[in-house]
């Protein structure tokens, strides 16, 4: 027969059990039957696991074994499988240990009735090992109410830790937590790779931050580059908020560019309780991390996590700050990318508008010269940028004379093109009423001077070719002199300026020169300085002498061919580089019968 335990260890006491420490996490009563006992065991283990009491792998086996043994004892020995009897189970957890109380309605037992576990002759006894196992696996095991109530408790196994290197030294972090966090970060990285919308990306980040940091709320603040104000780009639980530069904790973090961990917000003088008042939220802890641009030089925003709500009641710590840094880095990159994308988009829009403006401006240039007997005319403009400040035009004046003009607005690009468009409309409309070029320029100057602010002006040369008497007259508002070539003459003639630049001051005097009698073979070249000032690689200008040579060499050819020869020579001179200034030229060749 088995040897009974002679030893007394006060395992069984007569009195009532003490209330175990911690929060009650489970309470259940079940009839003393196998099925109900098995279900209760599983539910009890789940409750312990959910409370975090069985977080470590090493905790699982002892918990299951001892609770199993105790429940079997209550059902089998305590209640003799009498399902009319109830077994009551309670479980508690205080973060450092867990306890379970099991009460049955049986008579209890005496410690000396248990077999002595250390007696060799008891080794082969088939029963009586449950209490032994419980005593060894549990930190505390005690029976009360004469054995009808057992209280067992066990300390949580210290978690295995891993080292995390941070800028401020190495931290030890529970391995399970580290793995969980890295998994969450991996998950958010995957989700972010599939998302391109900035707002949705930041919402993803804020949610992941709240989850991993176990924060009640996360908001992402962005610095307004114009005012230095901070505004919420994404804020859980509130509408947009905007605060002045440097205000509150967020402002302090943006200004210093360093993370901040505030354990008690209301005790910190920098904390601004206005937002809490507005939202009804109560801020306790604040964890803030600056968002920086890609090279880390500039603070572009702040990530703010509020109130850690971990099941174990812990507060934000240095490791949380490190994790916040991971999300802040992601958010910083996302914002930077979005800003670059936006810039590229707006450049694309701008380019499209410039292209449109160019198309419109090109449409304003004459497609061909009017047909006038004895006159051969060709013109072209090459803008330095998309839009040109140069233009040329042909207008029919009252009385049947042809006006051919070239103009050059200061500068080039879109602004010059806008002025050119206005000048063109102005000159065109004036030419319907006046045939005197000086009168046209004088009136145009008055109109343009009113519109232009003084910093902008244009030069313009209007030549009038009159088929009625075969003459040339002109008026030039500060324009580079057109070249007049008569093959029989010893030298070129230059059509000097006869008045000031247009658009500077009103009521200026403009004069007309001429009439000059034209002959067959005469060549007139109107141009802008872009033509003769274009440079080669050695920074030498093309020059008027070369232009004169080309005109001489090509004097037998028609206007289109002469123009082509000029532009080709200029191209060769510049080595095919795009022109730095707009180039415009109009060639008029006088033939027989003019």
């Amino acid at each position, binding site marked *: 027969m088995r040897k009974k335990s002679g030893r007394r260890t006060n395992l069984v006491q007569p009195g009532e059990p003490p209330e175990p420490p911690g929060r009650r996490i489970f309470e259940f009563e079940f009839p003393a039957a*196998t099925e109900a006992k098995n279900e209760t065991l599983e539910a009890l283990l789940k409750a312990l696991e959910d409370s975090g009491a069985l977080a470590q792998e090493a905790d699982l086996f002892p918990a299951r*074994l001892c609770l199993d043994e105790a429940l079997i004892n209550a059902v089998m020995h305590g209640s003799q499988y009498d399902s009319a009897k109830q077994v009551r189970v309670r479980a508690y957890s205080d973060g450092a240990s867990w306890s379970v109380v099991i009460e049955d309605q049986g008579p209890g037992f005496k410690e000396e009735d248990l077999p002595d576990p250390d007696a060799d002759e008891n080794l*082969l006894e088939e029963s009586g090992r449950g209490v032994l196992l419980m005593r*060894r696996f549990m930190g505390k095991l005690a029976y009360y109410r004469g054995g009808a109530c057992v209280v067992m408790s066990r300390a949580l196994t210290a978690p295995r830790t891993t080292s995390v290197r941070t800028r401020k030294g190495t931290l030890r972090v529970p391995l399970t937590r580290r793995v969980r966090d890295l998994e969450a970060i991996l998950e958010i990285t995957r989700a972010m790779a599939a998302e391109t919308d900035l707002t949705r990306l930041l919402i993803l980040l804020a949610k992941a931050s709240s989850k991993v940091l176990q924060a009640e709320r996360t908001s992402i603040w962005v610095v307004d580059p114009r005012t230095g104000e901070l505004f919420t780009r994404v804020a859980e639980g509130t509408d947009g908020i905007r605060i002045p530069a440097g205000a509150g904790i967020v402002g302090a973090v943006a200004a210093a560019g360093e993370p901040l961990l505030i354990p008690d917000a209301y005790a910190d003088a920098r904390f601004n309780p206005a937002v809490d008042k507005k939202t009804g939220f109560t801020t306790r802890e604040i964890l803030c991390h600056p968002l920086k641009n890609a090279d880390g030089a500039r603070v572009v925003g702040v990530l703010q996590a509020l109130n850690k709500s971990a099941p174990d009641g812990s507060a934000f710590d240095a490791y949380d700050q490190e994790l916040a840094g991971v999300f802040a880095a992601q958010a910083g990159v996302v914002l930077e990318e979005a800003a670059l994308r936006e810039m590229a988009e707006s450049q694309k829009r701008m380019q499209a508008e410039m292209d449109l403006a160019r198309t419109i401006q090109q449409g304003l240039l004459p497609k061909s010269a009017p047909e006038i007997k004895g006159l051969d005319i060709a013109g072209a403009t090459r803008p330095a940028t998309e839009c040109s400040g140069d233009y040329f035009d042909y207008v029919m004046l009252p009385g049947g004379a042809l006006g051919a003009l070239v103009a050059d607005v200061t500068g080039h690009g879109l602004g010059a093109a806008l002025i050119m468009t206005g000048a063109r409309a102005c000159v065109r409309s004036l030419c319907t009423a006046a045939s005197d070029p000086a009168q046209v320029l004088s009136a145009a100057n008055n109109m343009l001077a009113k519109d232009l602010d003084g910093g902008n002006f244009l030069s313009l040369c209007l030549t009038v070719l009159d088929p009625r008497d075969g003459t040339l007259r002109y008026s030039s508002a500060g324009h580079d002199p057109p070249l007049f070539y008569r093959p029989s003459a010893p030298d070129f003639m230059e059509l000097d300026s006869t008045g000031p630049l247009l658009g500077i001051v009103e009521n200026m005097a403009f004069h007309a020169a001429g009439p000059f009698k034209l002959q067959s073979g005469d060549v007139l070249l109107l141009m802008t300085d872009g033509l003769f000032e274009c440079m080669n690689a050695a920074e030498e200008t093309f020059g008027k002498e070369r232009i004169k040579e080309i005109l001489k060499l090509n004097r037998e050819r028609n206007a289109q061919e002469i123009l082509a020869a000029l532009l080709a020579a200029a191209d060769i001179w510049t080595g095919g580089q795009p022109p730095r200034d707009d180039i415009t030229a109009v060639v008029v060749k006088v033939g027989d019968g003019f």
Partner: protein
Amino acid sequence: MPTPAMPAPGAPQPPRKISLGEGAAGMLSSGGGGRPAGGSRVPPKIQVMVQPDQVAVVTILDSAILDENNINEIGRQMLDLVTKQYMVKMVLDLGEVKYLSSAVLRHFIALYKAIKTEKGDLKLCRVRPEIREVFKITQLDKMMEIHPDLVSAVNAFKKKGWGFLQR
């Protein structure tokens, strides 16, 4: 049962596998097993492999032996191997078992006692650390040899000269 050809000395002989399913179950229960024929038969809880030198390797297939009915069924099956099949050189393979309670230990002890009565031996192998701890606390490891793997457990029978038991 046909007599197997004598193996060349030292040559490995394939083990006989007896699963407690259909035919094999019939064979095992021919000595008067209490398993009902047909009907709602529970799936086998153990698997038996008889090695050439009559060492029976018994593998428990339940990872967690929880329910009392299961526990008793496994205990009965194991005991039948000794009392009805005379498998007294037994290796109990616990490699699949992640959890057991003292109710299971009771059956191991009953099995051990039955084998010892027949002058045989019971060895354990592939015991998880936490279950090893149970054997240590209850001092059952003093009686039952625990081997890390199946091969060393089976070979332990050869070394100790159990050849005289071969039929």
